[in-house]
């Protein structure tokens, strides 16, 4: 903890100091996939302990932006990111930053449930194991149980923790993936269309869960469904053709948007 004296850290901390309400912020974010530009200078602040929904037609760059927030785009060779993204005022694209630690704080849930081909228990224990968040069996048991409980899955699976995670239903798998993300105790959870592969009932459960998670986590969710955005988010950002069209409180966005394009999209004229 004494490394705070590091001049560079000091500088970054000061330059990035922000109102406490903003957990993450993108500044002039541009993304290229090879020759093709996918994002054109996006400026967006993510408020703390709220759910922010990213909406827009297919290919508008909302998923790209989401993946920038925990540097998942690093895994794609041809992807180049410009501008800066701050987490608690620190630029996560700074070369001195360790992606591994960043991702421990900014977790992610994917479009298709992707449980590992391991037991339910091991799926949840995976994150704490690699990050060394627990060492004793009892500690692991506790992390697994709390995480599953927070994901609202514990009661459904408590008798079969040692069975493979791939054997669960789609909705359960997605909640398992959320539990897996929670187990690392991140500060931000990114969700990339988490319900697109789920049936309505499972979707309702996941949405309910998202609403509960808001108490402790900052959540950014990409969604195709207007209704979902309206149901779960407090703020909404509308993307179109790689640009941020507008951003604001969800109520306002859905009732009285500033931009014509937002209006058209929400009322279903395109998308």
């Amino acid at each position, binding site marked *: 903890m004494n490394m705070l004296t590091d001049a560079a850290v000091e500088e970054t901390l000061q330059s990035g100091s922000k109102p406490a309400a903003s957990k993450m912020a993108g500044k002039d974010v541009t993304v290229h996939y090879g020759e093709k530009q996918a994002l054109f200078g996006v400026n967006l602040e993510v408020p703390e302990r709220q759910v922010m929904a990213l909406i827009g037609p297919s290919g508008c760059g909302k998923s790209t932006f989401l993946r920038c927030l925990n540097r998942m785009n690093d895994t794609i060779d041809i992807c180049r990111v410009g501008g800066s993204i701050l987490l*608690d005022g*620190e630029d996560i694209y700074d070369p001195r930053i360790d992606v591994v630690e960043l991702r421990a704080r900014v977790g992610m849930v994917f479009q298709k449930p992707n449980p590992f081909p391991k037991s339910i228990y091991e799926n949840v224990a995976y994150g704490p194991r690699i*990050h060394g*968040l627990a060492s004793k069996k009892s500690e692991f048991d506790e992390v697994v149980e709390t995480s599953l409980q927070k994901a609202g899955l514990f009661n459904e699976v408590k008798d079969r923790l040692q069975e493979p995670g791939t054997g669960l239903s789609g909705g359960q798998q997605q909640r398992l993936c959320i539990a897996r993300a929670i187990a690392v105790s991140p500060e931000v959870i990114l969700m990339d269309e988490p319900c697109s592969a789920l049936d309505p009932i499972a979707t309702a459960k996941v949405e309910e869960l998202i609403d509960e998670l808001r108490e402790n986590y900052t959540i950014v969710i990409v969604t195709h469904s207007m209704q979902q955005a309206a149901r779960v988010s407090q703020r909404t950002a509308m993307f179109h053709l790689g640009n941020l069209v507008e951003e604001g409180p969800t109520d306002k966005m859905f009732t009285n948007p500033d931009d014509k394009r937002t209006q058209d999209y929400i009322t279903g004229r395109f998308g």
Partner: protein
Amino acid sequence: MTDLTAMPAVGGSQSRSLFLRGERTRRRHMAESRFRAIGLAAVIFGILVLVGLLGSILANGVSSFRQTYIALDVYLDPAKLDKAGDRDPEALRKLTTFTYQPLIKTAVEGLIEEKGISVDGLGGKDVEGIISKEAPAELRHFVLAHPSRIGETVKFELLADGRIDGYYKGRVTMETAKLDRNVSPEQLMLADELKAAGVLTTRFNWSFFTAPDASDTRPEAAGLGVAILGSIYMMLIVLVLSLPIGVAASIYLEEFAPQNRLTDIIEVNIANLAAVPSIVFGILGLAVFINYVGLPQSAPIVGGLVLTLMTLPTIIIATRAALKAVPPSIREAALGVGASKMQSTFHHVLPLAAPGILTGAIIGLAQALGETAPLLLIGMVAFVREFPAAPPGGFFDPASALPVQVYNWTQRGDPAFIERASGAIIVLLVFLIIMNLGAIFLRRRFERRW
């Protein structure tokens, strides 16, 4: 980093700066680098081993492409070759190589005298010993072809003995010559003198590719002619049989076969045949083609049939992949204008799949070309000096094959044969490289993305 090992309170803005790296993270990154280094080491090891493999073969074998020759003026003495003086071919044919040996001895002695070379302790046997034992046969062959030249002095370029050749390739030294019954240091000195006189030369060894095998005592004369021809014959048979059968089978399985038990059995069968040890195919060839059908041993026809059966699964698997890669829309388009299923397959699908099929066929052939074990069992290890006749009759004549010739030479006593074996491997590899490059070229040239 105690706040990390315990479960920290979720969320919250009290979290640490991202610029601080914990001890554990450092360790994890070390482990990461270690793992990566191990992976890289494995790749480098693989490359080094390959370099070692090819390097050792090249180092041993390249020299076989050069050979030492001695230019010799030989007087074809009529008093010895043609006592009757009538140049009767029948009578000449009756003379064995023993008759020619003294001619060579006289010629070498004459040469030494002419060049004014003197080497201490050079025995009479040593003098003729620097010329290959193959030389009398060469002379005899010449005389039989040109009986009219008896009585003339003819200039021959004769093979030097294998040990003399080895001396110039570093295999034989003065020290080893002292211990060697087959060569003496004096002979080597004589050879050096001859080299200085410009009579003894080392040049490119064409006969390595054209000459037949030679016996144990004449490594310098051994060549790959019969083996190359035998391999070519076998590849012809393999190509002619396995390509049509393989393509026909693939077309049936991919385009026509109903989903039933028989189809399943055939598919499992093909997958398994692809992994049956090659030697088992040799046993099949021995039991069925030789013992049962009664085809001759050592013949390219048997080798070709065995290799065909071995190559079929490879070709079928490649062809089916190529057929599968042709999109269904092409078939539907053809069927849509009223073509029959057969016409759609033969007019549209097959031509589009042709590059893939050819690539597979070349790779299958390359595999067959290098296969050794089954050929051992069907008698292709035999010592064959006669070239097989032209096909189709020649398919039934005894022949050798490139990889078998390699094996054959490694089983001989004279270390000069190791050089030959390595040289033969280089020839084999060159063939394989050409075939593989052809396959890669085809794939690149005609590759289609749908």
